[in-house]
């Protein structure tokens, strides 16, 4: 209406004078990056449906490598072992991570220390972690004689704690501390306040942490390779062993199945992810 309103002086329409959201060329770069990122995966998936023996010439579509993989007893065993280890390790890691996150946001002394100590292993080279675990497990084995799957589970649980910790903590920090105070004000004991208010509100974060830990455990090679005893191949270490000999398209089929499983789990993780539902 009057010149006092700078907004009224702007050209009509939604376009602004300085469009920060549409820097030219940015979307092209993004498309190229994604293409480069996914091209090898795409090649792998295509080859898993290849009717021929080698990657050289396309000889038609077939599911025969999937059938071959399913009929391979070693593959089936390795897959079941992977699932067992991932399920147990992610369960242990999630419980530990949840307790650490609660301690981190609810107690005052040592908050930063807890945070740093939990996150440190993420930065540590995996090979060092593997070597360290090997030393510990070797001495336990020498003392007890136990040689079961427990070592693999514990090793996976160890590196899954920081992974599970992140989404749990993010979720917990979005929970208003006043809610626990309100519960206490309404006659809830500290345990009741945790059980009835905090825990249900944390649940999506806990589930997200568990899924992430499961996926990380499922995909692990280095630590598993070090820690596993003879005949304790997980799916990734089995694949590594196979790749050392001859590359068969069977590996492509297994890889594709693993990618599909991981992708599904990660989709669930993103749906549960705390950052997506930060309201008011």
């Amino acid at each position: 209406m009057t010149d006092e309103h700078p907004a009224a002086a702007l050209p009509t329409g939604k376009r602004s004078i300085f469009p920060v959201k549409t820097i030219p060329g940015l979307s092209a770069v993004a498309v190229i990056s994604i293409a480069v990122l996914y091209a090898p995966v795409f090649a792998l998936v295509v080859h898993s449906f290849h009717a021929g023996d080698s990657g050289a010439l396309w000889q038609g579509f077939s599911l025969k490598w999937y059938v071959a993989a399913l009929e391979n007893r070693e593959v089936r065993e390795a897959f079941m072992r992977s699932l067992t280890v991932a399920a147990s390790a992610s369960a242990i890691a999630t419980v530990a991570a949840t307790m650490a996150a609660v301690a981190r946001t609810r107690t005052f002394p040592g908050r930063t220390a807890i945070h740093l100590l939990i996150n440190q292993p993420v930065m540590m080279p995996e090979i060092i972690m593997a070597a360290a675990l090997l030393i510990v497990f070797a001495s336990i084995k020498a003392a007890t004689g136990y040689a079961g799957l427990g070592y693999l589970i514990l090793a996976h649980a160890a590196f899954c704690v920081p992974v599970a910790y992140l989404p749990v903590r993010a979720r917990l920090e979005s929970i208003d501390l006043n809610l626990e105070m309100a519960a206490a004000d309404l006659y809830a004991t500290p345990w009741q306040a945790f059980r009835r208010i905090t825990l249900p509100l944390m649940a999506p974060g806990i589930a997200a942490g568990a899924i992430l830990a499961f996926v990380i455990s499922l995909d692990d090679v280095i630590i598993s390779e070090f820690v596993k005893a003879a005949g304790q191949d997980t799916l990734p270490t089995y694949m590594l062993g196979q790749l050392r000999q001859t590359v068969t398209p069977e590996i492509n089929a297994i890889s594709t199945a693993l990618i599909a499983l991981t992708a599904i789990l990660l989709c669930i993780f993103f749906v549960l992810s705390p950052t997506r539902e930060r309201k008011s």
Partner: protein
Amino acid sequence: MAGKQPATAIEARGISKVFGSGQNETRALDDVSMQIRPNEFFTLLGPSGCGKTTLLRMVAGFEVPNSGAVFLGDEDITGTPPNRRPVNTVFQNHALFPHLSVARNVAFGLEMLGKPRKEISDTVARMLALVRMEQFANQATNQISKSQKLRVALARALAPRPEALLLDEPLIALDHKLRKEMQLELKRLQAETGIAFVFATQDQQEALTMSDRIAVMNAGHMIQIGSPEDIYSRPSGRFVASFIGESNFFEGTVQSVKGDVADIRMPSGHIVTARLGAAKPEGSVTFAVRPEHVRLEQFGVAGTMPAKVTQAVYSGTDTHCHLELDGGERLVARLQNAASGGPAYDKGMRAGVRFDEGAAHVLAD
């Protein structure tokens, strides 16, 4: 509940609280005392950071005083955890449990007290009816409006029938119109339930319209406790006089004392008769006059103080006339606007100033 009713619902005795230590030490409360009667609407009024929230938290059990004690009736509850105090809080942000429905929120306190299921559902229905939220019983708490959230928070806190309800600036997030509406609503709830309400606010108008008694706080000190009328017309000191409503302050020397009034000579030479209240009637004193008790008349009328209008600010119902007395003192007069015609006084005009009978009040500090 039957039988003897203690004289006070809640009492705070000589409460002091220090936060931090060393350089960062802040004294949130300094020797604060108050007695809240059963069935009373009691308001803690003060600017933000005056300690009213800390005091409420102490009554609720979320803070422990460094010294002093909190009593519920005759019982010392200073060290009792919040979940064992029959006192409930309405939080500033309402703190409704987001994963529970409206009805489950209201039921929470009763469930924690282990009440039988039948009693819980009856009480929840009654409470929702009390705050007029019956039709929202099964809604999620993020599907209702701000004022509805406040109603649910009230129902939730009232459901266990506490000895006192603490309200920590619950109206602060509401816009003006809803605020007025909820003020009446709170007043009605207090009257209907007969529970003592302890209401913290920094809005003096809110405090004046809602309270049976007001406790004015500033910088961790309890400044004055009294009825709204006491606080407004007999402020104990400069802080209360300027925080609650507006005041003109004048210096002067006591000339003579007659009962509870004194003649005070202003530096300009005018003599003003002022109420003494609790103030010491000697030497130089400060007295306050509310702007609405200042009258303007024609310049030169007998018994008026000659003055000049320095500014006239129109504000709808009335006009604020800024004046300078010939002796140099400045003051503001609030003049109600007439139904027709422009403002009677304008910048630069001369006028005679007179205070209403009993308008001047000597302050204790």
